[in-house]
């Protein structure tokens, strides 16, 4: 078991190196630092001095891979690759284009992200599982057919409309909660209600439909017939036998996204003005702040791999059949 986890962690290293190389290629080789400087400074008629000054200010004035000017180890370390890419491995994200410490910003902004993402996940999970069980209990009746149509319709609606609709109904039409904004500490709750409701409703279509098909797949299995042959009631079969088995893919599906909750939701946060990592990323994209985008790419990859490892571990916990080697 521990050997298995160790091996998975070791396997993560080449993947992170790969991610790092891809980002390096994208951000520094496809377009040179000059190109970036020119774009930031406003396209045409930019003096070479201005470009040099911008590069020096943001630390892009080094050579890409090898520094002839420096000596010894510094000829490798005093380069863009080392300063901007390799240091990510130590979670040293450097500073953004407007001079703020990215690492500090991330540590501040992940909490509001979590404050939305965790309740959305939990409430959504509880609701979707209950609803799916309800549908499956009444399978092949009009409740089932109607619900499936409703679910397909719900998942055919873009998430943007859920947000716009939610804001319009609850905030604008009925003035129940503020449209957007955020507050420190416990006062944040009234700003969180709407995004959480919207997030949950937006996920019902795909979530419930998936769980329904998982339940139906389990119900067709032989052990369910055995359970019925014992004389168990349908409710008992559903809750004790089917639910337990279907929970395995459900839970492991949840575990894989757990670490990524830190990253927040791009759209929701920027719509509701929540100062989380999602809106941080969006702002960085629209301000073309590559330092932040680069950091978030790396952070996202780390969290994704963490999710994969956690998933493997969670399998051994919830599924008695899996013993890792």
């Amino acid at each position, binding site marked *: 078991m521990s*050997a298995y986890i*160790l*091996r998975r962690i*070791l396997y993560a290293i080449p993947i992170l190196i790969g991610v790092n190389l891809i980002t390096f290629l994208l951000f520094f080789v496809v377009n040179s630092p000059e190109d970036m400087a020119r774009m930031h400074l406003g396209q045409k008629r930019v003096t070479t001095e201005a470009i040099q000054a911008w590069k020096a200010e943001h630390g892009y004035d080094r050579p890409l891979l090898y520094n002839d000017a420096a000596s010894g180890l510094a000829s490798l370390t005093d380069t863009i690759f080392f300063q901007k890419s390799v240091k990510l491995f130590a979670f040293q994200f450097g500073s953004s284009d407007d001079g703020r410490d990215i690492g500090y910003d991330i540590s501040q902004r992940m909490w509001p992200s979590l404050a939305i993402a965790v309740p959305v996940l939990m409430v959504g999970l509880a609701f979707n599982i209950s609803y799916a069980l309800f549908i499956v209990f009444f399978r*092949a009746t009009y409740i089932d057919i109607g619900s499936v149509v409703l679910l397909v319709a719900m998942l055919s609606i873009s998430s943007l409309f859920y947000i716009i609709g939610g804001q319009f109904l609850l905030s604008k039409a009925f003035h129940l909660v503020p449209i957007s904004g955020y507050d420190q500490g416990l006062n944040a709750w009234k700003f969180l209600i709407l995004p959480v409701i919207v997030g949950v409703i937006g996920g019902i279509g795909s979530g419930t439909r998936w769980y329904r098909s998982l339940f139906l797949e389990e119900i067709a*299995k*032989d*052990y369910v*017939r*055995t*359970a*019925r*042959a*014992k*004389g*168990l*009631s349908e409710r008992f079969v559903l809750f*004790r*036998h089917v639910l*337990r*088995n279907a929970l*395995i893919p459900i839970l492991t599906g949840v575990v894989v996204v757990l670490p990524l909750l830190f990253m927040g939701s791009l759209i929701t946060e920027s719509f509701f003005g929540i100062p989380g990592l999602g809106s941080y990323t969006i702002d960085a994209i629209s301000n073309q702040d590559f330092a932040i985008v680069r950091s978030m790419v790396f952070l996202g990859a780390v969290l994704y791999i963490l999710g994969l490892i956690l998933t493997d571990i969670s399998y051994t916990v919830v*599924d*008695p*059949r899996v013993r890792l*080697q």
Partner: protein
Amino acid sequence: MPDPLIQVQSLTTQLGDPSHPLRVVDGLDLHIQAGETFALLGESGCGKSMTALSLMRLLPPSGRIAAGVVRLRDTDLLRLTEAEMRKIRGGRMGMIFQEPQTSLNPVLTVGDQIAEAVRIHEGRSRAQVAGRVVELLRAVGIPDPEQRAKEFPHQLSGGMKQRVMIAMALAGDPELLIADEPTTALDVTIQAQVLRLLKDLQRQTGMAVLLITHDLGVVAETADRLAVMYAGHIVETAPVADFFANPAHPYSRKLLESLPAAEKRSGRLAVIPGRVPRLDAVFHGCRFAERCASVMDVCRTRTPAWLEIANGHGARCFLWDSEVAGEVAKAAETPHGAVGTASLSSATTDAARSDERGAPLLSAQGLQVHFPIHHGVLRRVVGHVRAVDGVSIELREGRTLALVGESGCGKTTAGKGILQLIQPTGGSVRYRDQELIGLSNRRMRPFRKDLQIVFQDPFASMNPRMLVGDVIGEGLQALGIAKRRADRMRRVAELLDLVGMDPEAARRYPHEFSGGQRQRICIARALAVEPRIIVCDEPTSALDVSVQAQILNLLKDLQARLGLAYLFITHDLSVVAYLAHEVAVMYLGRVVERGQVDEILDDPRHPYTSALLSAVPVVEQDKRRNVIRLDGDMPSPSHPPSGCYFHPRCPQSFERCPHSYPEEARLSETRVVSCHLTAETR
């Protein structure tokens, strides 16, 4: 006659679209007395499992009971509410299923699953339940029940799981136990254990058993009475002894005659032509008429009524109708007399016998196939699964070597290793003085032509996206034998004819054919490249008995005509007795005994061979042996026991067995045994 325990009258069960239903059970009548074992016998698709599920009212969602009465003592089961029926299920009627692998909930411990049944039907307190669970596990012969109750199904072997299923069904002290093919998925030695257990339990509890099976041997050994089912209804009911002595229905007779056995070696097996009729059709006349050898005009126009022939022996056939009695005497003779033309094959068998000690076509020496086990951070190889661990065999022209063993003994891997479809890790395979192991794909190609294979599953062995003609012609194309399509198609037509199929089949897709026809096509594909050796990997075990007979006949004919050598991999000893010239018995990756077929079957020397032979259920009472009980299951090939691999289960093991693997002892020119006992007595 006392009142029956369960009485079924004109039960009709339909599947699928109500406007166009499949009548899987169509007017079925039967009754079972308390305490008896009643067997429902039939080939696949005859509706026997659906009958069982109808009795339990556990039909799949698309099924429904359209008519009939099912009476358990005084209770009309079909009129009960679902809640009342639930009390019957697992209470007065228990059921066990064919696939113990999938029939248990994988995430609950076996103790929990049995406890559920105990709680509903016995209403005991929590503390008492645990005790009862252990008691039940002990009753079904599970060693160390306290510990086993805490284990999950995947930690138990197939036989153990089936015992757990039985324990679960016993929890409600049922009056009737329905066993739906309870041993089909198990090996013969395990089957013998489970059947014995069922018998013992029946004696102790006095419950009745409805045994659903396709295996005539199992019926003969375990049942008191039986019913033969065909196309949704029962065609014959009889006490078991009567049935095997005097089968009344032509279908029953054919079934018995199509069973392979040693004394039928010289002839062809009886076959039933055609296929089972579709159950969505409306029948006029007898359902078996199209395939019946004694068919009369009346069979096609009138539906035969149920006729009582002797006490408790009845059939649905006009042969026993006094109105057409004139024809009975004449017609009843023919099926018995039809043994087929034996002259051709027996002549060639003798011819083959004369050069049986000639140089082998192919010889494998110490063949090994080991699969590495990786472990730890760096995935180092920490051990090997010794799937095949030193197998030595020889194949001769026109001869059949049967490789016999239970599932997991490595017989299929050995076959594929010989063909280089799996790279062997050691030993040698010599074909006509050429070493095959280690040849590159390109250098192996010339030998591919001579070495072919036929697989077990006729449904997985043909690409569903290819026309039958292309399937058969693939080898001709790949090996450059017939490069032009027209040549190829001409050859394909010849081959189809050779295996007894219409050459028109070349233009159709595999799914349009039945299992037996597909297996013929697969044989044609192997024959296309004119091989010398064919490895037959359980080619008939997925087929019904009557279809199996067709394939066995075909294989035998082909051998006689073309002088093929067969490596026949099987677990079925009756097929071995019928077809093989030599036998090699495998246990845990090694051959424990090999020799001429009569030597092995009549006078087994290795204790494993004896146990295996004794476990096979046979129809003839006088041939029955005392079952030698083997304890436990076959160990894992990754950790074989020390010394003789068989010693932990061997009833005759002694102090030398755990210390060294016995040397091969040559008992005669043809006979080799690996056992310390033989070495001792010699």
